[in-house]
């Protein structure tokens, strides 16, 4: 299974997960929970893409530089 499927995780985390995060409390880092939740997934998006970038064979050797 390709590491690229990992990209689906933040997408689902945001689009599906939001239904469970749609409340004000608890406040995290001073933010209402909904805002914290989306911020968290924005960071996790970057992390997921970094992992994919690292392990995707397309970025190894000459793959990406054609």
């Amino acid at each position: 299974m390709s590491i690229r499927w990992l990209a689906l995780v933040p997408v689902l985390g945001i689009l599906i997960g939001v239904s469970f995060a749609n409340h004000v409390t608890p406040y995290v880092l001073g933010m209402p929970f909904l805002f914290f939740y989306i911020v968290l997934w924005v960071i996790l998006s970057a992390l997921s893409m970094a992992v994919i970038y690292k392990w995707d064979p397309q970025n190894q050797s000459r793959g990406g530089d054609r």
Partner: protein
Amino acid sequence: MQASALLITFGTMLLALALGLAARRKRSLNLEQWTVGGRGFGILFVFLLLAGEIYTTFTFLGGSSWAYGVGGPTVYILAYGAIAYILSYFLLPPIWRYGKRHQLISQPDYFWRRFNSKGLSIFVAIVGVIAMIPYLQLQITGLGLIMQTTSYGAINQATAMIIGVIVLAIYVTISGVYGTAWTAVIKDIAVLAIVLIVGIALPLHVGGFQAMFEKINTLHPHFLTLQTNGMGVPWFISTVLLTSLGFYMWPHSFGAVYTAKNERVFRRNATFLPLYQLILLFVFFAGFAALLIVPGLKNTNLALLAAVQKVFPAWFVGVIGGAGILTALVPGSLLLMAASTLIAENIYRPLTKAMDSQVQTVARIMVWVLGAVTLYFSLHSNATIVALLLMGYNFVTQFFPSVVLSLFWPRVVNKYGAFSGILVGVALVIAFAQNSVPIIWHLNSGFVAFLANFLTVLLISSLSGGGTVLHEETV
């Protein structure tokens, strides 16, 4: 010293014009190059440039306006950027490869070549221009509001918008796309600093972050979440999808993809671009603080400026005005330029087979024509800046089904399908807009149009003989 605000704002504007004029003589660096790749620059420099690149009037005034007026649903702005960048990892490399192989320059070129249809490419160019008008309009609206505020009301909004359009058109005419690069550098650094200052200082002014949100939550229950009617969870999901799928469908963004040196750049950028979204949080914070500092504004687009005006001295209002002018001027000039070029290169030229010099003249004239059209809409509208951008997305995302299907599943799409799909999508968007239906069945109405478009592409393509995109052209 209220005059200092206006002085600083106008000074910035003149400086931008002067820099544009200077850049015309010495073509320095191509704006799109660093938007896409940032090759040859240091990492910190690239970070600053890219971080600033996402700041247009939309984020500066629009983001705070929505935090102020709509509340919780504003988080869609954070979410759609992240998903758009995730998508870019998979979407941009094939677009780039195909463009490279066929030496394409613009978005209509892609449709012309991929579907072998001149008519389709002209149609796409027309829809592209229509989509860019609300995007331009929001920059003009921003320019007008900033001048109105920094003059402390001495210049009314209509006059300010007229000045804004004229400055924008002059700016494009004298400097062209190359002139914006240095102005963009100044803009990026100024805006980054200001967003952080304002986004921290305003919440502290009303008692700190959590205290601020608690107060808002007491005053306006349910304001800080997605609402149960109107902009609820289904609206959020459909809007995030609509806008993230459309993110790279803007004619100017699509065209910029072709300027990258290699396809790896896109995949690398996808790993850190989502983080830039986080700086928008501070814009939202400023908007929420404004709700406590200057409650009851009729025009929510003014939220950030009005709060700043109340809390900071006049000279700082001027600095913010100056930075705000640049956030409207730089992307505005890029958009105005791109839309004029679309009309000249992708509509006028194929229809008339005109020579280069004629095409250039048409492009120059179109800068002023589009400026006038945009001004007309700006003067007759009181839409929020975010609503304007969403309107642009309603149009531009209609390209997505045809682009993606032709890239990844060429056997299921042909030019008839693509044409009718986009036509159905755009017609629905216009119908919804005419009847002021931004939300239908709890969904963003643009997303509903997008779904109808997608189905139409598949249906009409299969009825008209299936995919005609050549198999060997699969990318």
